[in-house]
């Protein structure tokens, strides 16, 4: 489930962000503001890096699903045995009898024209399926992220600030335990306690089938009621990662002289933390959180499966069971592509956040 939170922190000794090529090219030793041209150069580097990564994703998807990916004909036919003529007909329809190079160009063409094919299951355009489920996933992951980031960064900063205290030890212990628990198991436990035993929240799904009014507010409240458990479950694991990341970032900052100066100025201890330590510690945290972005999809996949939340994760899970190759392929490219773009944006954001423009890399 994602990248080790603890291994990540020392795993970035060269300062950080996604791409090493970009790192080395943008280090500024001189104490001057970088010129506008440097910025465009940086933007170009990041952008081209992301494009190369995306192309690599397309290659990988083709390689995994078309070359080593078993027999799509069997997947379509399911358990019913096919006659040779039926088989030939399906192969013809999918273009499977063409040489691989032709298939590859066909694949690239379809990717570029956004013609991603139809689902094996119900012949719907897979892009339509994705678009229909996307808002639900955004709602769930968005809620979970806001909870996890807000709470995690806050608690992590306080824990790192008071290293060695009972508060720090208990928070780190809790985070490690949460991180070590499988997301789907946490979901099962939460359901059994809060839905089955206490009956406080619905067991699964996103909307009640009946008994809810038609207006906007009753509908929204119903969705919110369904959202509580999955959002908290998903947030728990991400929260744990953010606590650990923010704590180590604060620990890195703690020895710095400017904090002593702030203390010497007569600021209260918590003001020193909030005003001086946290803004500095947030900078490396942004990069690390961006690197963890892929883990959010991992969490969404498992949480949606457990709670039958009708989002992309559940769609992916349903596609695995078939396996519905065109849908899997699209979702794979979507998940991977989103993380790559999110990382690129985080790199650019970092550049705006850090006035030093990474002069300390």
């Amino acid at each position, binding site marked *: 489930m994602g990248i080790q939170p603890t291994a990540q922190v020392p795993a970035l000794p060269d300062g950080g962000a996604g791409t090493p090529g970009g790192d080395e090219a943008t280090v500024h030793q001189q104490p001057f503001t970088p010129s506008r041209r440097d910025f465009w150069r940086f933007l170009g580097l990041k952008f081209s890096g992301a494009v190369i990564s995306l192309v690599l994703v397309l290659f990988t998807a083709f390689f995994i699903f078309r070359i080593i990916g078993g027999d799509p004909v069997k997947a379509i036919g399911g358990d019913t045995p096919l006659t040779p003529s039926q088989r030939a007909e399906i192969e013809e329809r999918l273009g499977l009898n063409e040489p691989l190079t032709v298939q590859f160009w066909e694949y690239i063409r379809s990717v570029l024209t956004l013609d991603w094919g139809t689902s094996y299951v119900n012949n719907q355009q897979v892009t339509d399926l994705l678009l229909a489920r996307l808002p639900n996933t955004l709602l769930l992951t968005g809620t979970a992220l806001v909870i996890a980031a807000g709470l995690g960064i806050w608690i992590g900063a306080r824990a790192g600030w008071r290293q060695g205290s009972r508060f720090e030890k208990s928070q780190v212990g809790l985070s*490690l335990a949460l991180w070590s*628990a499988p997301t*789907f198991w946490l979901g099962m436990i939460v359901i059994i306690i809060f839905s089955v035993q206490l009956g406080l929240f619905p067991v699964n799904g996103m909307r009640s089938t009946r008994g809810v009014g038609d207006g906007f507010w009753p509908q929204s409240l119903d969705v919110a009621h369904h959202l509580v458990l999955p959002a908290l479950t998903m947030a728990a694991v991400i929260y744990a990662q953010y606590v650990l990341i923010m704590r180590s970032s604060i620990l890195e900052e703690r020895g710095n002289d400017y904090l002593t100066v702030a203390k010497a100025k007569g600021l209260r201890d918590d003001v020193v933390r909030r005003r001086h330590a946290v803004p500095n510690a947030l900078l490396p945290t942004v990069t690390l959180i961006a690197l963890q972005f892929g883990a959010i999809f991992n969490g969404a996949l498992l949480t949606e499966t457990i709670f039958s939340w009708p989002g992309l994760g559940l769609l992916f899970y349903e596609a*695995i069971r078939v396996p519905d190759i065109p849908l899997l392929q699209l979702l794979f490219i979507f998940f991977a592509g989103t993380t790559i773009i999110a990382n690129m944006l985080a790199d650019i954001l970092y550049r705006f956040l850090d006035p030093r423009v990474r002069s300390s890399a």
Partner: protein
Amino acid sequence: MSAPSTPAPPGETDGPRATPPGSAPRLTSARAITWARRRKALADFWRQYRRQSAGLVGLGVLAFIALATLLAPLYTDESQLRAVNAPGERLESPSGEFWFGTDEVGRSILLQVIWGARVSLQIGIVAAVLAVGLGTLVGMMAAHYGGWASWLLMRLTDWFIVLPSLVLAIALVVALGASRFTIILAIALTSWAGTARLVRAQTMSIEGRPYLERARALGAGHWHQMSRHVLPNLMPLILASATLQVSSAILTEASLSFLGLGDPSTVSWGTILERAFHAGAISYGAWWYMLPPGFAILAVVLAFTLCGRAMETVLNPRLRGAR
């Protein structure tokens, strides 16, 4: 570990290193000195490690689980894992006979958890070793050769770091077909990148040290430099990284199994939870079906994480902090 070939006379010095080179006829071989130094480093490491209570707890839990798993054939009957031999009733709650109750065909949950440990641990450890080995290789190559090859390797590493690892692992298992081997392969292929980054940075710092420059000046080849000088210095770091990697490998294995991509012929903690989920244990309220395997995962993952963190703390004194 071989003992020093010529031990120092008793009462005079406390080890071969204390003898000034060339001052006495008791010449100790370079190999003996190396081993003595490594033994001392290991002893130092253990002394530091012992101070970390969390790391000791983790080690204790691991020792207990390892023992319980290895000795499983001695105190349990594997044949009862088969549905036809199920000794109990359907979904019995915990009792004196079945401490953790039974599953939907009447098999003991405890027995499944004990035997599931074998699969989960085996997959987790093998996958982690493979991942760390691959990461070490890539990291060392990227650091040692430099130039465009290094650039390419690191680009690839970053690509793997960013990608959602579980999604990629699922895609691989779906494509290759679910089996123990493919699961190990998928986990290893999707989790080596963090180690590669770590190893690259460390290798670069080791390669800057004077004794490597000397080795190069004396004409040491790439292989000699890597195997004799860089790798021994990387070992502690690699070990810590591997320990942490086992945690995430076990979690990934559990997730894959839960999503129905586990090896169908065996019982692992993830597959127990998958069956619990599909057998309707949640709505039945059969908490005993879900708690034991989940806690087993939690305990093992936490134990490996605690050990790995304790090792990291020993290796990186900056993490230790001032009390």
